[in-house]
């Protein structure tokens, strides 16, 4: 009995996740090997690897791989660095700390579509936007963010969304940093940068690993922000892997090619996760 019960408890989660993984994957494998365009009904003909060739030789393919990785790397970099900074800033008590905390974490609760449209219009519009007004006031020409720096604009939106998450985790972790140790180091003449480098940063190694892992999971498939603002453009300047596959499937109606792309995305995700599991696998215990 003592062996059976734990397995029974695990069964629902394992079964549903197994189905959730295997059924779509199997179907994707099948679709990727046939000619299957929703606009050209007819016989589903086996065409081997043609879909893969088509997807990989698409001129948008490499740019989208690069965009996916740039987006991932920039947002993770920005949120970790700024998050550590903010967490250190609010670590000690000061007047209004509770309110500051609430303000800081608010963007985490905002849905991606609202986030995207808010930045696109009210902030980044080159004529009526707040940023345009700031540039004009400072005497420079307003920038048309979404047309001239589309990927950077997406990075700003996504980072704004994820910074609170990183900050929160670092804040919680800093609370458990041994204060006596910090004070002792201060007495011994360690200056602030030294205390940060030798005490706070090592303490934050684990939470940083966790933040990187969770953000990676969510950021590999950034979609709504691109869908509602740039539509992947201009050209392919802000098309990532997720958006490229979406375009093939629901705009070109080419299920075969989209499935080949999806398999490629799975490979990309797995390469990323191998790195990740190496890096933080030991943190799971």
């Amino acid at each position: 009995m003592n062996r059976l019960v734990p397995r029974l408890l695990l069964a629902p989660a394992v079964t549903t996740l197994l189905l959730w993984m295997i059924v779509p994957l199997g179907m994707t494998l099948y679709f990727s090997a046939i000619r299957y365009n929703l606009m050209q009904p007819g016989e589903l003909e086996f065409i081997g690897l043609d879909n893969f060739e088509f997807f990989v030789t698409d001129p948008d393919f490499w740019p989208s791989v690069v965009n996916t990785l740039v987006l991932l790397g920039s947002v993770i970099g920005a949120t970790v660095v700024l998050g550590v900074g903010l967490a250190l800033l609010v670590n000690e008590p000061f007047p209004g700390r509770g309110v500051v905390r609430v303000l800081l974490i608010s963007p985490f609760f905002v849905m991606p579509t609202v986030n995207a449209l808010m930045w696109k219009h009210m902030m980044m519009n080159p004529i009526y936007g707040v940023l345009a007004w700031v540039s004009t006031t400072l005497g420079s020409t307003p920038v048309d963010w979404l047309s001239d720096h589309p990927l950077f604009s997406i990075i700003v939106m996504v980072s704004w969304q994820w910074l609170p998450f990183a900050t929160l985790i670092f804040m919680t972790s800093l609370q458990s940093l041994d204060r006596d140790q910090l004070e002792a180091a201060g007495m011994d003449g360690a200056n602030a940068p030294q205390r940060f480098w030798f005490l706070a940063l090592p303490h934050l190694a684990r939470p940083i690993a966790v933040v990187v892992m969770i953000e990676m999971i969510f950021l590999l498939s950034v979609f709504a922000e691109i869908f509602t603002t740039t539509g992947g453009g201009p050209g392919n300047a802000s098309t990532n892997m997720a958006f490229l596959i979406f375009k093939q499937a629901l705009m070109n109606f080419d299920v075969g090619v989209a499935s080949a792309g999806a398999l490629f995305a799975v490979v990309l995700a797995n390469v990323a996760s191998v790195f990740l599991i190496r890096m933080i696998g030991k943190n799971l215990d």
Partner: protein
Amino acid sequence: MRPGTLLRAAGAWMAALLLFFPLLWLALTAFKTELQAISVPPRLFFPPTLETFAEVQSRSDYLHYARNSLVTSVASTLLGLAIAAPAAYSMAFFRTKRTRDLLVWMLSTKMMPAVGALVPVYVLAQTAGLLDSLTALIVVFTLSNLPIMVWMLYSGFKEIPPEILEASRMDGAGVWGEFVHVIRPLAMGTLASTGLLCLVLSWNEAFWSLNLSAARAGTLAALIASYSSPEGLFWAKLSAASLMAIAPIVVFGWFSQKQLVQGLTFGAVK
């Protein structure tokens, strides 16, 4: 107050206001007329109006979408907890050699980008006649949150000292009794924060709701996308709709943040 503290407080306040500013601006714009919304220079002070809110409700039936958001997020949270909690319990208290591999595998299913499963899930939903249905959204939300929930619950359950369990096992409590009387009181915090995170993630989920739902089962996240261009130029309406879409979850988040944060460490804080 020491000058250092003062400087730090000023910095923290500035950072917080800067990060919060876009939301504040969104909220202000929601109370403007369309003309005031696009005035140059932007106006901080103006006579507030409520007419855009009424217009949003009459034009796109906000309440219908809000109801869909509420139903899908609450149902997927409860369903997710019902599946994830037993699994996490089993992994935390009946560890085997394979526990870690199992957890890594579960997380790896979340690694697969949603878009990779889009076509199959779309086809399946279509075949089952579940396109644009709340059922499909609930199932998909639950499945995509499940790995994160298991992980979060597992790292929370692990903090419970095993000695307590051993003692209750000696006293002859069965698995059920152990769960109800010993684990549950200690694990309520973890369960609550996991549920809260799941609620936030589902409420804000945009990929599946954009692709699997339309007028009938659409959630607020999908409704807002319909305000993208060309109607996006009506900023006051866009802002009012956005504010109505995020206000419930943001206010909810403010009140539950302490609870949420406690469980949001994923075992990273020792």
